[in-house]
């Protein structure tokens, strides 16, 4: 019982703080709007969603609260009673938090004091919604009751799902049949069957060819951005994920690639109007060389110097591009317009579908490079330098050139992403190259699983794709990223898809058999 009380109290306080914070930053409105979206009712941003959706949202929070409070370890063979006690306690504590805040803000609103002067997100309407349309006292009591009831229900639900033999049996069976299906002889045969593999690849290829034609301009734009971030993530993964050198100002190389490409293909300010492919290659090369130049003086040092230097470089690049000094050469803060698109055999391909194809091809090429490098002699040397540079040196690895190569390749890939980005938007300016871009890339690599190629894909979709789908939380993007990073550090410090090492003693890799 003692653990149950303690669990209940702790969880109640945590969720109390969460609920109050959500209210203070106006997230209760957004949450209700999200619930409304799930039920198919669209709520325009800025307006207040109907009350039932708010009730559902708060109840969901309460359910979660109860379920967390009823977590293990609970004393005694009978888990049901202590779980309920924990849920009740958690609900009461959270409810009291919420009720106090509701009461205070309800009173303020009743006295016609506009709190928006101090807390921008709290409109009178949102306070009214938080009080369920009632006056301050009734509203706060309702809040207390709702949170308590839903929390008890949550704990009951959680403990039932956990202890009920039928439910557990169902999940066990499902898990068993899943592993059986994966490890069954037929499945293994199918996976090793070359024609099945080709069929699968053909299916994927067909999907990649057909889908961009059908899903329209908006999705092509969103997924094109995701693709560019995948390329950036794969690039950063080389130097940060494998070679273990943190690069904060990765956007510097992105900018070098974008500007090199833009200046070579745009009519102004230089009117060079080069061929797309030539300019693309030069953009990649310029970015790679800039990486090399930044790495030369600092990569023989150990520690986080590279992080600091690239951070500085990113800001210097952006400010230089903006400055009066460089305006004649880089068009200054106005940016470069009418950047060229891809041409092939005299025809130009500039529709959004064409660009989607181009980005898909670039993603495939870069993934292929990353995949080939990953377990090669070079790739292993990077990981060795990452894990213990001193020992890596004594096994004959030149850590300096190894890191330098990683940085140059990373930078070149960022240059490719930058050039594609500039070409697709037909515009690039200093504001496209804010430090935020680099922070996004670092986040997506860490969240996806540092050092892992599929992890980068997952991270890019989660961090660049989802926010586009959930437009409601646009203003809270940074908050969500921050929370996500903290949660990841606590629960899965290696990311959603942690890197795995190949089993080389048992299985010879496919490339080794042909030799």
């Amino acid at each position: 019982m003692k653990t149950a009380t303690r669990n209940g109290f702790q969880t109640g306080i945590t969720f109390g703080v969460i609920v109050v914070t959500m209210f203070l930053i106006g997230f209760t409105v957004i949450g209700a709007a999200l619930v409304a979206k799930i039920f198919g009712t669209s709520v325009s941003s800025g307006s207040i969603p109907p009350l039932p959706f708010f009730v559902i949202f708060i109840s969901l929070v309460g359910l979660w609260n109860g379920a967390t409070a009823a977590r293990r370890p609970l004393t005694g063979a009978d888990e049901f009673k202590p779980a309920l006690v924990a849920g009740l306690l958690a609900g009461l504590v959270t409810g009291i938090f919420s009720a106090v805040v509701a009461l205070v803000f309800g009173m303020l609103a009743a006295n016609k004091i506009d709190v928006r002067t101090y807390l921008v997100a709290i409109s009178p309407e949102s306070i009214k919604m938080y009080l369920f349309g009632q006056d301050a006292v009734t509203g706060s009591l309702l809040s207390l009751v709702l949170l308590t009831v839903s929390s008890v229900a949550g704990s009951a639900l959680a403990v039932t799902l956990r202890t009920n033999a039928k439910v557990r049996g169902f999940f066990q069976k499902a898990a068993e049949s899943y592993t059986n299906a994966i490890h069954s002889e037929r499945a293994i045969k199918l996976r090793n069957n070359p024609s099945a593999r080709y069929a699968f690849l053909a299916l994927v290829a067909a999907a990649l060819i057909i889908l961009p034609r059908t899903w329209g301009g908006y999705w092509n734009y969103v997924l094109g951005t995701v693709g560019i971030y995948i390329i950036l993530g794969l690039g950063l993964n080389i130097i940060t994920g494998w070679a273990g050198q943190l690069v904060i100002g990765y956007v510097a190389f992105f900018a070098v690639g974008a500007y090199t490409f833009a200046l070579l293909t745009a009519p102004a300010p230089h009117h060079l109007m080069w061929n797309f492919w030539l300019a693309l290659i030069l953009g990649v090369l310029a970015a790679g060389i800039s990486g090399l130049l930044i790495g030369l003086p600092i990569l023989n040092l150990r520690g986080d110097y590279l992080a600091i230097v690239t951070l500085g470089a990113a800001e210097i690049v952006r400010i230089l591009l903006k400055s009066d000094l460089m305006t004649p050469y880089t068009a200054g803060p106005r940016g470069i317009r009418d950047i060229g698109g891809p041409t092939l055999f005299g025809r130009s391909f500039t529709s959004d579908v064409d660009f989607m194809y181009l980005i898909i091809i670039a993603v495939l090429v870069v993934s292929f490079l990353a995949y080939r490098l990953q377990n090669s002699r070079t790739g292993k040397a990077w990981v060795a330098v990452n894990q213990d540079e001193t020992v890596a040196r004594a096994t004959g690895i030149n850590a300096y050139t190894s890191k330098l190569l990683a940085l140059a390749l990373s930078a070149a890939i960022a240059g490719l992403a930058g050039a594609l980005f500039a070409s697709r938007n037909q515009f690039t300016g200093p504001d496209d190259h804010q430090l935020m871009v680099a922070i996004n890339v670092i986040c997506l690599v860490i969240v996806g699983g540092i050092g892992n190629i599929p992890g980068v894909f997952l991270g890019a979709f989660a961090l660049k794709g989802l926010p586009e789908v959930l437009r409601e939380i646009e203003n809270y993007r940074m908050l969500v990223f921050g929370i996500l990073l903290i949660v990841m550090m606590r629960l899965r410090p290696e990311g959603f898809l942690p890197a795995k090492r190949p089993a080389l003693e048992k299985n010879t890799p496919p490339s080794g058999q042909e030799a």
Partner: protein
Amino acid sequence: MQACIETRQVSKIFGGLTAVNSVDLTVPEKSIASIIGPNGAGKTTLFNCISGYYKPEHGQILFYGSPIQGQQTFAVAALGIARTYQNIRLFGDMTAIENIMLGQYPRFSANWVDAILSTKRERNEEKQAIEEGRRLLKFVGLDGMGDTLARNLPYGAQRRLEIARALANQPRLLLLDEPTAGMNPQETDKMTHFIRSLRDTLGITILLIEHDMRVVMDISDQITVLDYGTKIAEGQPKDIQSNQRVIEAYLGPGGSTLTRKYQQRKKQRHDAKN
């Protein structure tokens, strides 16, 4: 017999502290030499000078006659000098066989372009590296554990894996820094045996630092004693055992008299018994 490694008047100074002071050391080819001495005598510092971590302020280090002092660590390693560490230092997040494959790094030459294009060189080398890795795993008795992450291996296995990684580069000189540290007597015996077999079957010259005197006296062809960075004695095990300066370095001044008394009493007791 040709000298494998030779240090001539090597000194390493940290600020005001002379960690290694004009040390002369010659290790003949295919012998097992030990460096002993109290804590802080400069043994590991001397190792670090040989393997290229430190650049000695004075003196020369000759490997088969050619000077290697001041060369980069990776270049020294490529010449055929491999080492292990006092506190095991493996690439913990890589598998055992990958650790061994990294040990072979200087023997191969495939670069990143080969990796991307998957050239014949890349594929051949990869195949060779894996085969050699499997062979070495078997050699140190770790076959079947090759796909385990190094940090998940038991302590003894980690020690052996570290030696396997050092052997992977087919070194001519192997520097072992306390190879039996933390081992129980049975494991120590096994390790002693193993080290001797390295010399006998592979013909590798071995230089080791060791605190376990039973091992040192058992295994060494030659012992060098350091104290406060200076060489105080050198010779065969039996000479070192009775060397007064060595005993005093370990037990403090007067130690040699004590030892003599102890040995006399032991002898008396022995005589009385018979």
